[in-house]
């Protein structure tokens, strides 16, 4: 294993060397970095020109200049990496230091959302192969797959942001909107559960009716102008989450798991006021971390107490339930601050922003304001990115799941008389996840350098935007540094995904010939 990994890393270094060399020279022939200074009439242009030539070694031909750059990079082994400076003489690590967190913040939520939703929809679609739901999802995923992201982004800015902000002024939901949303959700859930005609119709009408009622209540009580879940909301959602988690995780037949999850819902409700109080007075990232650890500990203990024989699944259900309820409580705390946030002068009642990564005029030092501010700025780019990458996951997980469902071991599992839930979740789903894991690993790496267009359209200064700027201004050092980071991440992710593949699927022997 060690030999294999070191061989792979050796190969990766050669690849890095080659591709940086190619890119460096491509960049060098793509234009004259001193164009603007040469034609400039400013009196200082001449000295600036000479300074730049000296600091960026522009008098050395490109292939040789590459080795000057490489020498700086190789200093990483002495602990002082030298990536040079950009054209404004800012050291590259400083520039990257602000750009990388920005990009991660931008793509993290979108990627996770796309993965979770995409895999869930893809798998349900595969289970209902050739149903109307399946055909519809194929069409939707193709459609999303064909959308140019910059086009979607402009549409989102124009329609979603502006109309949502207008809507928030009085929180009134139009009748047509209620009708259409109820119909859509009814059709969707009827498609997910499918079955006989009568059953489908029942599910459709119940879901549509409940949906319409909820939306109507939210509209009448003007919930959106001062949103809150409250203790009753936490309680109701908690019970629902407990049932849903148990259903997927162990099946409702496992009474102990259900009881453990329901207990967690109850504990969440009881702890609602204390948790809210502590979070409200001094919210901080550290506090949330503590909160998470406590939740985890309580949930694990609770799971153990409820289980008699088989601990694993019960602890798992308990933890999952606790996780979702904790998220709800945090969300509720965010809502508490929402009203104050949108009424600050900096926001002025129009929270969803179409451009930029944060509101600089906010009163500083308020934790929850910052959280909400980040969320409102992430809203549009996250939707755009999710829509685009969601399609790929749906298609891929559907295809893999269909392949797995045709395997002999699935037939064996069914023949043994296992419940369909066990067959799907334990035998089929887990095996579907093996190839998906490798895709996810690569996607995460690729997306760090790949959100170029989204960042440009929404005015975020992350890695993608840096990259585009570097090309516009012929900033050699900046371009090479962004590329270096991106490519190292991709290579690492490739290695990781190969190792993961071997670890997850014992049939595949990593490193063997």
């Amino acid at each position, binding site marked *: 294993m060690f030999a294999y990994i070191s061989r792979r890393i050796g190969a990766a270094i050669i690849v890095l060397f080659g591709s940086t060399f190619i890119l460096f020279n491509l960049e060098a022939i*793509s234009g004259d970095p001193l164009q603007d200074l040469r034609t400039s009439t400013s009196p200082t242009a001449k000295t600036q020109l000479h300074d730049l030539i000296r600091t960026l070694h522009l008098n050395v031909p490109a292939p040789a200049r590459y080795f000057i750059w490489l020498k700086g990079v190789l200093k990483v082994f002495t602990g002082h990496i030298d990536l040079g400076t950009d054209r404004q003489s800012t050291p590259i690590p400083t520039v990257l230091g602000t750009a990388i967190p920005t990009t991660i913040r931008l793509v993290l939520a979108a990627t996770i959302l796309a993965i979770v939703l995409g895999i869930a929809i893809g798998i349900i679609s595969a289970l209902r*192969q*050739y149903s109307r739901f399946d055909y519809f999802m194929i*069409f939707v995923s193709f459609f999303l797959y*064909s959308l140019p992201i910059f*086009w979607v982004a402009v549409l989102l800015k124009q329609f979603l942001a502006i109309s949502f902000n207008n809507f928030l002024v009085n929180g009134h939901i139009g009748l047509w909107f209620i009708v259409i949303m109820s119909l859509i959700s009814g059709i969707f859930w009827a498609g*997910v559960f499918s079955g006989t005609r009568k059953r489908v119709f029942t599910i459709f009408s119940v879901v549509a009716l409940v949906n319409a009622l909820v939306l109507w209540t939210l509209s009448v009580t003007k919930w959106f102008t001062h949103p809150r879940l409250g203790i009753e909301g936490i309680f109701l959602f908690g019970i629902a989450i407990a049932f849903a988690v148990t259903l997927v995780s162990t*099946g409702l037949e496992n009474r102990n798991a259900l009881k453990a999850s329901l207990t967690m819902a109850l504990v969440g409700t009881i702890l609602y006021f204390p948790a809210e109080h502590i979070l409200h007075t001094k919210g901080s990232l550290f506090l949330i971390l503590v909160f998470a650890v406590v939740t985890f500990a309580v949930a694990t203990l609770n799971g153990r107490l409820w289980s008699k024989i088989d601990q694993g699944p019960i602890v798992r259900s308990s933890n999952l339930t606790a996780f979702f309820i904790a998220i709800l409580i945090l969300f509720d705390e965010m809502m508490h601050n929402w009203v104050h946030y949108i009424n600050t002068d900096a926001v002025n009642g129009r929270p969803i922003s179409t451009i930029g990564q944060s509101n600089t005029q906010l009163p500083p030092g308020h934790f929850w304001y910052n959280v909400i501010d980040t969320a409102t700025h992430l809203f549009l780019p996250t939707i755009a990115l999710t829509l685009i990458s969601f399609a790929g996951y749906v298609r891929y997980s559907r295809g893999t799941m269909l392949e797995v469902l045709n395997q002999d071991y699935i037939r064996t599992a069914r023949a043994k008389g296992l419940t369909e839930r066990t067959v799907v979740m334990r035998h089929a789903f887990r095996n579907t996840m093996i190839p998906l894991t490798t895709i996810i690993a690569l996607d995460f790496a*690729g997306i760090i350098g*790949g959100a170029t267009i989204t960042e440009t359209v929404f005015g975020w200064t992350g890695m993608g935007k840096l990259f585009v700027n570097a090309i516009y201004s012929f900033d050699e050092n900046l371009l090479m540094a962004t590329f270096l980071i991106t490519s190292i991440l991709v290579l690492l992710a490739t290695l990781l995904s190969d190792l993961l593949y071997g670890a997850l699927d014992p049939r595949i022997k990593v490193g063997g010939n």
Partner: protein
Amino acid sequence: MALFRRSKKNTEDLVNAEGGLENREIEGLTQGQIVRARFFRHRGAMISIVVLVGIILLVFSSVGGNIFGINYSGWWKWTITDMPDVTQCRAGIVGCPTLSVIPKFLGGAGMHLGQHPFGQDDIGHDYFALVMRGTQRSIIIMFVLGIVAGLVGTVVGAVAGYFKGITDNLLMRLVEFIIIIPVVIVGAVIGYHFGSLGVMVLALMLGLFSWPGLARLVRGEFLSLREREFVDAARVAGASNSRIIFKHILPNAVGVIIVAVTLLMSQAILLESALSFLGFGVVAPDVSLGLLISQYQDSFTTRPWLFWWPGLFIIVICLTVNFIGDGLRDAFDPRQRRRIGRKEREESRQAIASHSVGESK
């Protein structure tokens, strides 16, 4: 529970897999005929082909252009350089589209194209002509990129997979060199320099950097196919390496290649428009759909048609190509089973029943 309940159709398909309904249907047909029949049965793909061919004919005949050095002019009354007077349609807004599709008896203005069906841009250019020219660019890039990447990827993958060993190792390192550079980055760097050289050069360069994924796919296919008996048979019969690669193995891998190239082509459209949007792909004075969108994204509130039309064409072309790819995948996949209608199943059951009754007598 219901969420995990196996759908009835799944079960029936399993039964069909064992049963001979589908098998009987393909008896006595060649592989090509089966694939063709399956493809023609894919409704989405067939509609897509009709739409795509329609768009290609419309786009290339309407405004004319320059293909392989031959200039020709189209039937549309304006060219992309004509600058008729800008018409004022509403207060402060100029160049509204004159296209109308709602007939008079439904309360519309009747079905007609008018002077400028897609409207006019700021200085009076006919927007229909601009969109047509932009779509021409997209389609040219799509096909050139598909051909270049398809050829290079297939050859590299085939050679690597067939010869294995050191050749494979070297070629796969080359693939890694190129795969690691995100194609947007490559496009940006070369587009910035070569974009002004015209759309063909841009497409060619993009094609030269888009093949690694395909090469890996083809290599995998060759690695498994080269171990098959028919390859041994060919080798024993004295066939040369190139003959085995091109005559024996390649036809068996052609399904995978065609599907992958189709998907590559649909991505090429998006890639081109994204690059042009960023200002790296097709650059002014040439026209491209991405460029049009980026020029008019700010006029969305006042003149939304400048934004809708280019986007619509990108989506429709991309969608049709994707559906054709899906149809091809279904057609080439030997495990693909057709969904068999209830009526057919009933008929076959009766046929089998009467047949067995006859036998037992």
